[in-house]
């Protein structure tokens, strides 16, 4: 199964000192090596975002993110996992799960409604 792993910051959380979070390069090397991580990128912060809407055939642009949320997307990865349990284990090893928030979204297969 494929999952979109959204990597988000959590401005409300301040870890107390060194919480032993894993290193992101180790994570990438491990997951690439296992064939779990198909791709992934960091993205620029919400202040660099542009929101696009087409309403009545008119393109409307907004400077900034579309949703006013506390979590901001910092990056994403695409995972190929056996099931949700494996995806959860993979996400829990990512340093941003320790200081930020990770959301796992299963892909919607093209042949399903």
């Amino acid at each position, binding site marked *: 199964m494929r*999952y979109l792993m959204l990597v988000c910051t959590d401005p409300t959380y301040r870890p107390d000192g060194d919480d032993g979070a894993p290193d992101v390069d180790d994570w990438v090397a491990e997951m690439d090596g296992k064939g779990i991580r198909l791709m992934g990128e960091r993205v620029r912060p919400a202040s660099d975002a542009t929101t696009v809407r087409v309403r009545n055939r008119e393109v409307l642009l907004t400077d900034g993110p579309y949703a006013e949320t506390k979590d901001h997307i910092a990056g994403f990865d695409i995972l190929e996992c056996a*099931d*949700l349990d494996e995806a959860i284990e993979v996400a829990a090893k990512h340093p941003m799960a320790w200081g930020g928030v990770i959301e796992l979204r299963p892909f*919607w297969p093209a042949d399903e409604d």
Partner: protein
Amino acid sequence: MTPERDLIAEIYADGWSRIVAIMIRLTRDWSLAEECTQDAFARALHTWPTSGVPDQPLAWLTTTARRRAIDRMRRAATEAAKLKEVAAAVEPQPPPYVRDSQIPDERLELMFTCCHPSLNLDAQVALTLRSLAGMSTAEIARAFLVPERTMGQRLFRAKQKVAHAGIPFRVPPAHLLPERLPAVLHVLYLLFNAGYGDPQKTRLCAEAIRLARVLTAAMPDEPEALGVLALMLLHDARQTTRVDAAGALVLLADQDRTQWNAAQIAEGAALCERALRRRRAGPMQLQAAIAACHATAPTAADTDWAQIAGLYAHLASLHPGPVVELNRAVAVSMADGPEAALPLIEAVAASGRLDDYHLLHATRADLLRRTGRAAEAADSYRAALRLAPTEAERSFLRGRLADLPPQS
């Protein structure tokens, strides 16, 4: 009721979840699995009274359910490959039907899937009752006081999430078990508590105990699973004496111990001992040990309060929380007197976390009364009275308030 109908009802109670589990494994479709299991039981109700109950009723039901699944998939024009897979699968063979079977079985996978922590707790509870207890959506809705439509949507969403998110249908591997088993135990105990003390909902208690028996039969080495079964048996054994004929609350000390279910208490206490011998004490085992201390005391005066206080201290070290501290204070007051317990209660009160909990105020009032501080006790009784949720409790508190010596 004909004897066949009685037997079908009995087979339903035990067989529903086993056939649902087999059909889920086969079709990977929860709704389809439930529908065809339902169809198979409907067919049994129709034909068994005249044709007689087959020698292997579960095998008969499983075969019928599988044929229904193939029919339904054909009608829904399910993709050919999947249909072929189900049709070609080796006939799943459920074990023969044995009353109170102790054979580890496929229900365990269903239990862990229903209680997967990626589902919210309401969804876990609803799925467990539907798939494992075989309760209808309407029955579950009534038990949790929500409209049937709401419960239907909750179940629908939960099944969708299981299918779409890739929640595996299995007993978690050993390295995940320590974090997954507590979720299952929590749901079972929550079911039990949802039924406890309400004569209309005793089915929930019975189902929780039945499922805990399935779990412990399949995982006899998990002390916390033994612990939750022991805990529920010990509470259930004393269920009928909690309120009197008029519906008023009866304190533990005043309950008629001859009315308790002695066999169930003996079983619960033995299970609890068996669990604790494994030297991996956990919150369920400790709560069961506390319940066993109460349940096995011949009279209220014989209760070993010092041991109970020690068990609460152990529980507080594993599972710190204000309610545990409150209970510990009660045990200390019984073991060492109210003076020893008051500082513990004041610490809980100072934390502010139980300000809205009537039992904090009621317990504090009781300790103040016993130390002769009547005026302060009266204030606390009044606070408890404002917060108490049931008339039985309010009436008890009013009685205590009225019995206080006059204050100058």
